[in-house]
């Protein structure tokens, strides 16, 4: 007769374990994850014995997608290697894109500067000092034409980190494609378009939440017909995690935001199965390896259940959580920057074990500045090493069935759902953001994390232990101040050359549509085509929608 695991476990604890612990106690008591989940010493079949394999894990490519969204995962096609890039002028960024594509990157990811993200032209007083700094500056369609010059938009997929001005940049992208002779229907890519997390963490909002949500759902409706292969939103936990929240909070707050978008779209009359498969997600991958892997799997399962049970989605594709991952920028240290290469490698590996669809690996010098060309190449090589040398991409969900991974997946799902229910009780994500609840939770976690580092309860190699005397990194990317002048001059010449009457007409039409209930995307598309500036379009909407002020 086979031995009983529970009895054997008890015997092991009593005889073998206790003897060992009495001789040499463990390093910590208890061990906890960053989400305050108390870790067991040893996970065994006892921890997963209740689980219903077919219901909770199932098979890849099938509900609830715990083991992955495609049946073959990376055996079929590797994840998209997509380095977030953009700086200075469209001219310089275009060169960086071509460099990355030459080195084997498989998709583009556009970083815009803050004025572009917040709806100000390069010549606006509030753009002072910000032009081209954290991303590329885009004022008019002219800049977008330069940005994608020589890059065939029917061959690449492009992700754009753009939120409150997403409709404008999407319109410009479509207009550039048309100039290349490419129809919008075949374009592939993603706009972030996740305004809720901007109020909670990232800060590039313009309009109040309800008006912003209208633009979001207008984009859903527009793309359903005009850009059916485009991911209309990338519901992002990344920035909330970077602002300090835990892995569990990241899952909970992201899915709660996702639910708010689904509700908003259903409210304006869209059928859930007509847009849900175009929703994409974006998560962070931080240091705690096993917890992160479990996090991705838990998020996938929980979202699938929410879509099916709460929103009555009928198509499997509507329940599929597809996501991009970026390694944790906030985990990088200015001290001993080479250590960051190793950190990023572990984080990237966890994202791959977690089944990510695309991945950005951070560069070693990002605690100092935007990365140099050489450090970006090394970050890309890190992904290629995982993909081509490690062998982990040759099996689907290779860590599935690990007692620890499955137990943590269950635990994260459960704890995230508790948060989701709490947010439900507050009236949903928008209410929880307006009341400051989400921001408060994020801030609290960030503060605790910092205190743990300073108390050396959390060791960061090179920062609070194993320090060395070192010179700070000086070979970093610097954005020249002339970039701002260059952009301003180019903007002035576009304004000179365009037909200003047509611009005025286009903006009048946009204003009327914004005041009514028709979709705002088509008039935005018409406006960008006659070279209305991003600032002019945003100002037109500001007049109608007003501006949000942080509470």
């Amino acid at each position: 007769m086979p031995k009983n695991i529970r009895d054997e476990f008890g015997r092991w604890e009593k005889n073998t374990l206790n003897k060992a612990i009495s001789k040499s106690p463990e390093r910590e008591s208890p061990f906890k994850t960053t989400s305050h989940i108390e870790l067991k010493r040893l996970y065994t079949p006892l921890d997963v014995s209740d689980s219903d394999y077919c219901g909770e894990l199932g098979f890849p490519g099938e509900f609830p997608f715990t083991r992955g969204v495609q049946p073959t995962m990376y055996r079929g096609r590797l994840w998209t290697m997509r380095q977030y890039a953009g700086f200075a002028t469209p001219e310089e960024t275009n060169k960086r894109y071509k460099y990355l594509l030459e080195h084997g990157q498989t998709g583009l990811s556009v970083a815009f500067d803050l004025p572009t993200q917040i709806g100000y032209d390069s010549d606006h007083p509030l753009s002072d000092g910000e032009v081209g700094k954290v991303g590329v500056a885009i004022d008019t369609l002219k800049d977008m034409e330069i940005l994608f010059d020589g890059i065939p938009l029917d061959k690449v997929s492009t992700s754009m980190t753009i939120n409150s001005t997403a409709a404008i940049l999407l319109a410009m992208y479509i207009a550039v494609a048309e100039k290349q002779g490419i129809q919008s229907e075949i374009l592939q890519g993603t706009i972030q378009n996740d305004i809720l997390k901007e109020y909670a963490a990232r800060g590039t909002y313009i309009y109040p939440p309800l008006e912003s949500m209208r633009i979001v759902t207008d984009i859903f409706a527009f793309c359903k017909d005009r850009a059916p292969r485009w991911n209309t939103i990338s519901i992002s936990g990344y920035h909330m995690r970077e602002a300090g929240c835990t892995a569990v909070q990241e899952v909970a707050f992201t899915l709660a935001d996702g639910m708010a978008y689904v509700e908003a779209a259903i409210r304006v009359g869209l059928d859930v199965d007509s847009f849900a498969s175009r929703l994409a997600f974006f998560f962070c991958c931080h240091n705690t390896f096993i917890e992160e892997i479990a996090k991705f799997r838990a998020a996938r399962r929980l979202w699938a259940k929410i879509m099916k049970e709460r929103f009555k989605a009928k198509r499997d594709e509507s329940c599929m959580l597809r996501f991009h991952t970026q390694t944790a920028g906030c985990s990088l240290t200015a001290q001993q920057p080479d250590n960051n290469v190793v950190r990023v490698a572990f984080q990237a590996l966890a994202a791959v074990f977690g089944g990510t669809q695309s991945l950005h690996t951070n560069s070693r010098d990002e605690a100092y500045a935007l990365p140099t060309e050489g450090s970006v190449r090394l970050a890309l090589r890190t992904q290629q090493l995982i993909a081509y040398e490690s062998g982990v991409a040759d099996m689907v969900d290779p860590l599935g069935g690990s007692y620890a991974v499955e137990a943590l997946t269950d635990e994260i799902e459960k704890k995230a759902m508790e948060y989701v229910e709490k947010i439900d009780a507050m009236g949903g994500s928008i209410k929880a953001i307006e009341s400051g609840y989400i921001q408060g939770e994020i801030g609290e976690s960030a503060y605790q994390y910092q205190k743990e580092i300073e108390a050396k309860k959390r060791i960061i190699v090179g920062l609070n232990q194993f320090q060395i005397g070192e010179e700070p990194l000086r070979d970093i990317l610097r954005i020249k101040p002339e970039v701002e002048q260059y952009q301003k001059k180019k903007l002035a010449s576009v304004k000179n050359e365009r037909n200003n009457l047509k611009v005025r007409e286009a903006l009048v039409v946009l204003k009327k549509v914004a005041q009514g209930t028709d979709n705002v995307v088509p008039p935005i598309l018409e406006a960008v085509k006659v070279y209305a500036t991003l600032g002019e379009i945003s100002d037109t909407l500001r007049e109608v929608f007003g501006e949000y002020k942080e509470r």
Partner: protein
Amino acid sequence: MARKIRVLIAKPGLDGHDRGAKVIARALRDAGMEVIYTGIRQTPEQIANAAIQEDVDLVGLSSLSGAHNNLFPKVVQILREKKAEDILVFGGGIIPVDDIAGLKKAGIREIFQPGASTEDIIKYIKENVKSF
């Protein structure tokens, strides 16, 4: 009884990365100071005015977007114009080491770089604020 140290923590420019600013605001509060946090997207004028109105001893500026060379000196300049040069201005964020000398020359008294602890900042404030 001595008045508590009053600090304005401010986010100049368009940068929305406020994790550091909020952590520092809270740490200074826990260290017994009175802290006002401006929130994000403040102009140098707004920050200088808030500093004067709130009668603070120090202003801590945080920027991670690379706009520090434009924005930090302006805060100092406006404070000087408004005869409030006794307010000590310090800063932090993603600030390349080669920018520090220029910022100090412009009147920013100290720059804290990535990895600085809240303890370092509290110690600096206590040592550098007059009459405490």
